[in-house]
């Protein structure tokens, strides 16, 4: 890896705590400080520009991961701690990738199903309880592909209990899948190298 890339990665890593710290500061105190405050105003000005620069660098990093195969290979193999120094390690990595792919695929299928599936148990109005039952179970599938495209036609029941689609945000879902994929790969890699472990 070239010196430039090493410095670039080092900057991204080292700059992260400063950016997070600045974001926390901005949340609590804001960055609109009168210039009369001198050094503090200068520090905030530097913080703003640094945050802008850091996010630009992050954007460049993510774009490079997408468009450059060799950069992606160098960076992500390091990030996932892949070891491919000889044919056995290549084989072990291949098997771990296969199993991580299949387990992630299974997880994605479960998440996809739970994201469209709703189940609600609700109490029937007194007028409709003549048949003996007091509660009703309602199941539905929401098959919309675009966010907010589906019309909310579900009736509002009183005393309703249930699970209405996946209680996770888009970011939460992506983080879950990302963490699962990387961690399961690491798990399988360790198990392949040492079958007695885990």
């Amino acid at each position, binding site marked *: 890896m070239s010196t430039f890339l090493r410095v670039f990665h080092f900057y991204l890593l080292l700059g992260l705590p400063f950016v997070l710290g600045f974001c926390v500061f901005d949340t609590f105190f804001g960055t609109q400080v009168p210039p009369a405050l001198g050094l503090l105003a200068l520090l905030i000005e530097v913080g703003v520009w640094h945050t802008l620069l850091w996010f630009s660098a992050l954007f460049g990093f993510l774009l490079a991961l997408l468009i450059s195969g060799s950069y992606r290979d160098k960076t992500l193999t390091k990030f996932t701690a892949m070891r491919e120094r000889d044919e056995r390690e290549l084989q072990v990595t291949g098997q771990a990738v296969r199993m991580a792919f299949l387990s992630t695929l299974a997880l994605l299928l479960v998440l996809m199903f739970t994201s469209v599936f709703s189940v609600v148990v609700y109490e029937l109005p007194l007028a409709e309880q003549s048949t003996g039952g007091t509660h009703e179970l309602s199941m539905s599938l929401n098959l919309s592909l675009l966010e907010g495209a589906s019309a909310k036609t579900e009736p509002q029941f009183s005393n309703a209990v249930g699970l209405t689609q996946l209680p996770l945000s888009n970011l939460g879902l992506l983080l879950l899948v990302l963490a699962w994929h990387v961690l399961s790969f690491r798990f399988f890699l360790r198990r*392949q190298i040492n079958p007695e472990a885990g």
Partner: protein
Amino acid sequence: MYSLLYMPKLNPTLKITNTIALLRAERKITQQDLAQGIGVTRATIIAIEKGSYNPSLELAFRLARFFGQDIQSIFSVEPL
């Protein structure tokens, strides 16, 4: 959760044994020296000696050349 981390077991039909550990001991060569000599890691030499990894044909030839022997005299096959 655990079933999501299932690992299939391979069922080999042949058992491949080798005399690498013996040859190494005869020549007083360490695993590290052998690994460097044929361009693999020491972990791979350990795995081959234990029989938990069968080398490729290319690596088998490299091992044979390193010890100055035929492949057949280093590796032998027996049914399970």
